[in-house]
């Protein structure tokens, strides 16, 4: 086969090209020809096709994501905003924190272990590329029905992959989510979050400046894995029943990534790097075009110099390979030797593959011939933008009308029925203890883990002297979002925000992973538009800017989409981690207060799912000002030592939270149903803006006065006591019985 050089492409304008097979539309192909003034070479076509895919170009979502910038709240905490590998937040004392959440859904369905593992690997490199030391990971997960045979294939593989990669890399896993719902059967969601810490002056950006500076590729050798993965995996659903159509899977090497981290931090420390980019989707073509596009001037790359694992690869394949654990640095010539020396110290292969030029083109050569000559912006940043049609689904009204009223869904009445319903709830897979999964993750490594699973948020000490720390929680509720995507996205934010505050940290910033079905379906596109609008509005009100995130579309099987699932991560800061608030009720005699208002709000609730397999009505109402007030009280309570434990109320309502706090502390509680509240509603409603706290008697007056002055309803509902949960006049449940129901559930299904 003759090499399709730029010269050859110019001479053969009419050669047939497989643009359609590569996922390009006719108008997109025409635009590429127009940009180049000729037909693209094979290599150029491959580059454009992947970089203009949904996954890399955000062509369907861009117009909606714009709101995160347009409605950005006033804040001086944001040092780097949307557009870079990850946003960077000022947390004080000269420290900056960067965090981001990303999806690896489709690859994890094809090959659960490697898909999930490389998901962790990818997000960690994003954080590293900002100049930060990665310090923790989290993993919000969604699976199909717990008793479905395929869940038994997918779940253990994904969990082992996340653990296998994260543990070997030495990053504590400090939290995440595990949710089961049949809607995720063919589309499990594997979202991965990484957080990193640096000093302000250490921030690095993905930019290539300075003609003559060298482009260094370092890390793993390039092999034939994942070629075309970005476009095929992310732009279409695939048919897993036909193995021959399965795209090449990428295999992760966490050991290589650990070396990459230490080596990269050392070259940062010696200030040898002027621009840096990790390799993600579309590999070399993405990294070089993004670096060149974001910088000034052009770039020239010699593909022959790329270290290969398989020397039969074609130049197109080398460009598109998604081999993991690779990075690309821009280094001044004077620093190249030292850079290579440090790589050698860490057994990391590093090669100069090109340089920054004073031209305006990205030029790539192979065996002396030019195979790519493009304006880098057109590849990396000026991809297509679609205004996809969207419309409120015809079924939305009917769904919302199907409210779980007492008339339509039978509610437990009387102590015995309530008691049974509680055991059923806390023993259901979504509400049960998740330690079979989380005990496969190292949460102690690096020695700075203050809080981890199952606490409301993960908390990491940032500075060992001052005890400055950060807390992160991720949340999402696809059931709520299905009922009302606008409110559902806001509820996800509110829950994560509340979780961070419950541990005593002040919420500062947001990252989000938007998991949806096909954007070509106007119903799904409406869900997406509503969710982004809701999230942007709520972020503005709460003063927490979106710093970055990720969109995963085409999560559907045939015509059936997953529930719209915006997963929101909130990052908070705490001045002194000694003041953190854990969730365990551990002190006999302390008073239990319920903060916030409880209404009859069961639409989309865990109880409707567990007891009736029902989804309908409206999600709980959301009052963002109330959320903010609740957070302030929780933070003040922690800072001033007024509360010893706090736990936010969400899925499963009060009884779920109470069960968790009691089991964790090994102490029971005696509760009274507040005046005017129906016991069932008291125990199972999922009204937003609530938390339970345990207050030492000596602090009761101070605490209730603070709530009174600030206008937050605080109801004394009971006392920490004994070894049962007793709801007076209703039922008594020994902790042992609750423990029995709550634990071992996942094992029994999966293990």
């Amino acid at each position, binding site marked *: 086969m003759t090499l399709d050089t730029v010269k050859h492409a110019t001479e053969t304008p009419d050669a047939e090209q497989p643009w359609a097979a590569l996922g390009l539309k006719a108008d997109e192909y025409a635009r590429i020809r127009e940009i180049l003034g000729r037909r693209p070479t094979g290599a150029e076509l491959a580059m454009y096709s992947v970089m203009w895919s949904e996954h890399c170009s955000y062509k369907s979502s861009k117009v909606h994501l714009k709101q995160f910038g347009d409605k950005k709240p006033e804040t001086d905490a944001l040092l780097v905003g949307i557009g870079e590998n990850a946003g960077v937040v000022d947390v004080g004392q000269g420290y900056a924190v960067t965090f981001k959440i990303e999806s690896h859904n489709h690859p994890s369905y*094809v*090959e659960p272990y*490697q898909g999930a593992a490389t998901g962790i690997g990818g997000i960690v490199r994003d954080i590293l590329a900002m100049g930060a030391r990665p310090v923790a990971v989290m993993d919000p997960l969604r699976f199909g029905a717990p008793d479905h045979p395929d869940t038994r294939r997918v779940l253990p593989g994904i969990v082992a992959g996340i653990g296998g990669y994260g543990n070997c890399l030495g990053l504590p896993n400090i939290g995440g989510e595990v949710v089961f719902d049949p809607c995720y059967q063919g589309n499990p969601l594997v979202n991965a979050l990484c957080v990193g810490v640096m000093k302000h002056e250490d921030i690095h950006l993905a930019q290539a400046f300075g003609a003559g500076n060298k482009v260094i590729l370092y890390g*793993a050798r390039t*092999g*034939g*894995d994942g070629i075309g993965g970005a476009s095929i995996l992310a732009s279409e659903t695939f048919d897993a029943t036909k*193995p021959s159509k*399965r795209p*090449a*899977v*990428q*295999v992760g*090497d966490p*050991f*290589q990534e650990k070396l990459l981290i230490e080596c990269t931090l050392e070259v940062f420390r010696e200030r040898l790097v002027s621009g840096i980019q990790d390799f993600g989707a579309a590999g070399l073509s993405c990294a070089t075009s993004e670096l060149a596009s974001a910088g000034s001037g052009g770039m020239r790359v010699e593909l022959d110099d790329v270290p290969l*694992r*398989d020397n039969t690869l074609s130049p197109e394949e080398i460009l598109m390979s998604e*081999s*993991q654990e690779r990075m690309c640095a821009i280094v001044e010539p004077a620093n190249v030797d030292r850079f290579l020396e440090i790589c050698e110290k860490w*057994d990391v292969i590093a090669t100069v593959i090109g340089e920054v030029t004073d031209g305006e083109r990205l030029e790539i050569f192979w065996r002396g011939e030019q195979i790519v000559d493009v304006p880098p912006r057109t590849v990396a940043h000026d991809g297509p933008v679609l205004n996809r049609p969207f419309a409120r689904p015809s079924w939305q009204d009917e769904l919302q009308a199907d409210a779980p009223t007492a008339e339509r869904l039978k509610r437990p009445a009387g102590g015995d029925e309530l008691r049974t319903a509680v055991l059923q709830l806390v023993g259901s897979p979504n509400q049960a203890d998740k330690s079979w999964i989380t005990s496969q993750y190292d949460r102690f490594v690096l020695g700075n883990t203050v809080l981890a699973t199952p606490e409301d948020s993960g908390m990491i000490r940032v500075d060992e002297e001052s005890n400055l720390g950060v807390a992160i929680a991720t949340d999402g509720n696809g059931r709520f979002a299905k009922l009302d995507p606008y409110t559902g996205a806001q509820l996800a934010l509110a829950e994560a925000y509340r979780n961070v505050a419950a541990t005593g940290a002040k919420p500062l910033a947001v990252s989000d992973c938007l998991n949806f079905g096909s954007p070509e379906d106007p119903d799904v596109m409406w869900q997406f538009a509503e969710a982004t609008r809701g999230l942007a509005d709520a972020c503005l009100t709460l003063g927490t800017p979106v710093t970055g995130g990720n969109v995963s579309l085409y999560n559907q099987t045939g015509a059936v989409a997953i529930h719209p699932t915006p997963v929101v991560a909130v990052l908070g800061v705490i001045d002194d981690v000694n003041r953190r608030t854990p969730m365990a009720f551990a002190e006999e005699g302390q008073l239990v207060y319920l903060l916030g208002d409880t209404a009859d709000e069961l639409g989309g609730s865990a109880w409707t799912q567990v007891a009736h397999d029902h989804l309908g009505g409206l999600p709980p109402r959301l009052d963002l000002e109330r959320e903010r007030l609740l957070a302030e009280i929780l933070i003040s309570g922690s800072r001033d030592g007024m509360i010893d434990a706090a736990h936010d109320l969400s899925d499963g309502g009060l009884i779920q939270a109470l069960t968790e706090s009691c089991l964790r502390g090994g102490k029971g509680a005696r509760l009274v149903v507040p005046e005017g509240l129906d016991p069932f509603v008291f125990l199972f409603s999922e009204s937003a803006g609530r938390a339970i706290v345990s207050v030492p008697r000596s602090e009761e007056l101070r605490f209730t006065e603070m709530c009174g002055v600030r206008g937050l309803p605080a109801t004394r509902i009971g006392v920490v006591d004994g070894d049962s949960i007793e709801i007076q006049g209703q039922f008594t449940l020994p902790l042992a019985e609750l423990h029995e129901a709550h634990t071992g559930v996942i094992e029994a299904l999966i293990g």
Partner: protein
Amino acid sequence: MARVVVDVMLKPEILDPQGQAVQRALPRLGFAGIADVRQGKRFELELEGPVDDAALARIREAAETFLANTVIEDFTVRVEEEK
């Protein structure tokens, strides 16, 4: 009893970090001249009955669906001669 061996190796185009780690270590230990190392799994199955075509077909199916992950691995099945 008859023994059937199933060898499972990563497909050639798939990265083999374990094999690579071994390969990189060998020269340091004084073992030169080894161009490539791949590490895979070996299963030894002791059959209760005779190793006839039907038995082998079943083992091949077990290898295909269970012992190997054919997304990333290839396998071979063979009868081991008595030693």
